[in-house]
């Protein structure tokens, strides 16, 4: 755990000795339980703090048990809100400047927080009027990120959930034999209980063909399938080059921590792709929605975000096995040298890990 922002992640400007922190308030009576939007908001909070020379971010996550979700998410009701709330909490611990995480379940405490903040004039996100009118615009546009990047030449990076990065390193060494990790997240809303925009789901046949081809060409690579327990087909469990954290009782926090130390990410636009967007991981975000281009201040067909590195690419059409292989090879050329070297000489422990993978539940 680090009390100060991770220097590698934040590249902090000189910070004045000012005691205040930015207060970020997430009130789920009108804001969304959405991994991507919440992760993006963490970057926005970090930018606010840096630009105002503040050292920290305090996060308040508010859920009113009697009105636990926005109108958009009517399936979240008083009897099940805690499951959704509990699932999403690790996101807040990815904020590189986090000082406190306050989970509030009564409106009186939240109201006092809001009005005290407004009275003091200390920085908060979103603006007080947003809370009064209960309207948060989605998706969150990237104009502020692009502007910050243009001014400073970098963006604050999301970190692994606080406390989890060392676990991820140890787990990678002990249980995954330090193999090269390629995190994947082909969207499968049609497998979940709350179907939404299923036309955006990834073509699984292409993905399975891609995974099987890589198993032959690059046996050193281990795919890490992230996402909810319902969001993958059972046949993935049979593949010896796939590790599914949720099938081993791990949670979102573990997935994000593993992603932070992974070599590359490939997936559909989703919460996990948002995490990749704001880290240094090599990534390919596939089949971007054209309508999202305006929020990212890019044009459909653009290969990168303005703040992206050379090994961080976007595609704008439905992926095929060949295209997945092509993008994978492109990302692999950018792998750090030590990883490439390791891939040529798999460690002695990898046989043990291969064996463990083959015995997945």
């Amino acid at each position, binding site marked *: *755990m680090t009390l100060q922002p991770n220097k590698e992640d934040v590249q902090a400007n000189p910070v004045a000795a000012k005691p205040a922190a930015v207060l970020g308030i997430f009130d789920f*009576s009108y804001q969304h339980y959405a991994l991507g939007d919440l992760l993006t908001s963490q970057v926005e909070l970090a930018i606010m703090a840096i630009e105002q020379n503040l050292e*920290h971010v*305090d996060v308040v996550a508010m859920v*009113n048990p*009697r*009105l636990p979700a926005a*109108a958009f998410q009517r399936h979240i009701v008083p*009897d*099940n809100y*805690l*499951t959704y*709330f*509990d*699932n999403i*909490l*690790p996101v807040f611990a990815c904020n590189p400047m*986090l*000082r*406190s*995480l*306050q*989970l509030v*379940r*009564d*409106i*009186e405490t939240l*109201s*006092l*927080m*809001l*009005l*005290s903040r407004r009275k003091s004039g200390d920085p908060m996100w979103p603006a007080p009027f947003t*809370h*009064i*009118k209960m*309207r948060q615009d989605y998706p969150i546009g990237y104009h502020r990120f692009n502007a910050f990047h243009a001014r400073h030449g970098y963006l604050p990076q999301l970190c692994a959930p*606080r*406390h*989890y990065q*060392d*676990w991820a390193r*140890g*787990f990678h060494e*002990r*249980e*995954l034999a330090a193999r090269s990790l390629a995190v994947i997240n082909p969207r499968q809303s049609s497998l979940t209980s709350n179907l939404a925009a299923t036309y955006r789901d990834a073509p699984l046949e292409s993905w399975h063909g891609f995974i099987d081809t890589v198993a032959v060409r690059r046996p050193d690579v281990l795919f890490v399938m992230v996402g909810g*327990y*319902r969001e993958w087909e059972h046949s993935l469990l049979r593949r010896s080059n796939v590790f599914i954290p949720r*099938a*081993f009782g*791990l*949670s979102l*926090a573990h997935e994000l921590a593993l992603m932070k130390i992974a070599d590359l990410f490939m997936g559909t636009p989703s919460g996990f792709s948002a995490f990749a967007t704001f880290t240094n991981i090599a990534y390919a975000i596939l089949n971007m929605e054209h309508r999202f281009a305006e929020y990212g201040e890019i044009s459909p067909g653009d290969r990168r975000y303005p703040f992206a590195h050379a090994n961080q690419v976007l595609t704008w059409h439905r992926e095929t096995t060949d295209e997945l292989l092509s993008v994978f090879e492109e990302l692999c050329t950018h792998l750090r040298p030590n990883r490439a070297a390791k891939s040529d000489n798999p460690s002695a422990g990898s046989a*043990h890990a291969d064996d*463990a*993978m083959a*015995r*997945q*539940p």
Partner: protein
Amino acid sequence: MIGRTVDRLLALVERHTKHRNRAVRRTAQLTVLALSVVRPPEGAQTPADGAHEPQAQFVDRLFASTRLRDYVRGRGFVRPLLGLGVRTLLLQAAANAKSRKLAQSDRRAFVLRVNGPVEQALMRNLLVWHNHVFSTYPSCSDGRCVDLMILLAQEENDARLFDLISIALMLDRVRNVAVFWDEEGIEAAAPMFMSGAEQARWRETRDAEDLRRLPAEIIDEVTRRGTSGGIKLLVDSRGRVQDFFKAALPEKFIIAVSLREDRDGAADPGDLGLWLPLFDAAAARHPNVAFVVLNRLAPSHWRVWPSHIRFARHQGLSMQDTLCLALVADGYVGALDIFGLAANAVARPGVYVPLMDGGGQRAPPDGSEQDSAPAQIMVASRDRARIEAALGRFLAGLPRFSGGALRGG
């Protein structure tokens, strides 16, 4: 004086907030809101506890109103404007109510210190603290909820923080849960959670319960006699657990199991080695019994398991789901950790084994096992022979059944 006048007016208007006539009802509601706002937020004229309960319920109801949300976000001019006005008043009324409560209350927010990693004993201690420590404060005997402020120490490898939070959110009498990584953060947040007296006490003494060092006599008592209540059974978790039972172990007498865990929170291989032969032997003698392990297993220890053993976390159940599983399974066997304590608290029959030998836990004077409730066997030590004998005694007492009604048993 002003406070009393406002209270009288409120009492007068309040009865009309559910009037049949919409115009009267709305006017009364707005008046109640406005009066809630102008009422002095704190001071000597604070009424007796509970005097403002109807207004608090009214404000609470409006905050939960989807209709109001539709008004605020609606199209046009009048409805959004009205909605914004009401929201503004609501926020002010609720903030005033909180200020009043803070002025009156003492010991409604507790700072818990976590020095060291979040591990099995510490998570158990959270429930022990909830059931046996904070409720002993005179100001907490009224059954109302309290707020937890968890102060974490600097730990590099501590991947169970969110398990701890998951548990805290399921505790009966816990409302808000805040996690801080330094005392500066608590200082900043204290005015929102603590009364003036609590803040002064915190500044002066840094008084915080250390979750790793709860009084040994309390831990001893809980280890010998168990506990009662404390964990909420979540409605949707119960549904998922029942789905799991029906799909994975139909018609079985299901015994939840928790083993000792390693630092990462996975089942300890040594403990697994202790219990597995006992489960195999038990299943051979009682074919209708199945065991569901609540801990997760490290990938390197995964193998093909016999049909009488399943791992709930590996089949899509979360930490909260598995805690609910412990509450609703037919029985419980294993460590007296958070799962064991939760099962014990709702009188699940079974065999409860101390999380560790020694460590301040005293065996009963005569060295015998104790039954805290019918069919609950509290084993006094982690000795294998004792565990085996207790498990045998427990299984021998199980009702005999031969399957579903249509199986011709």
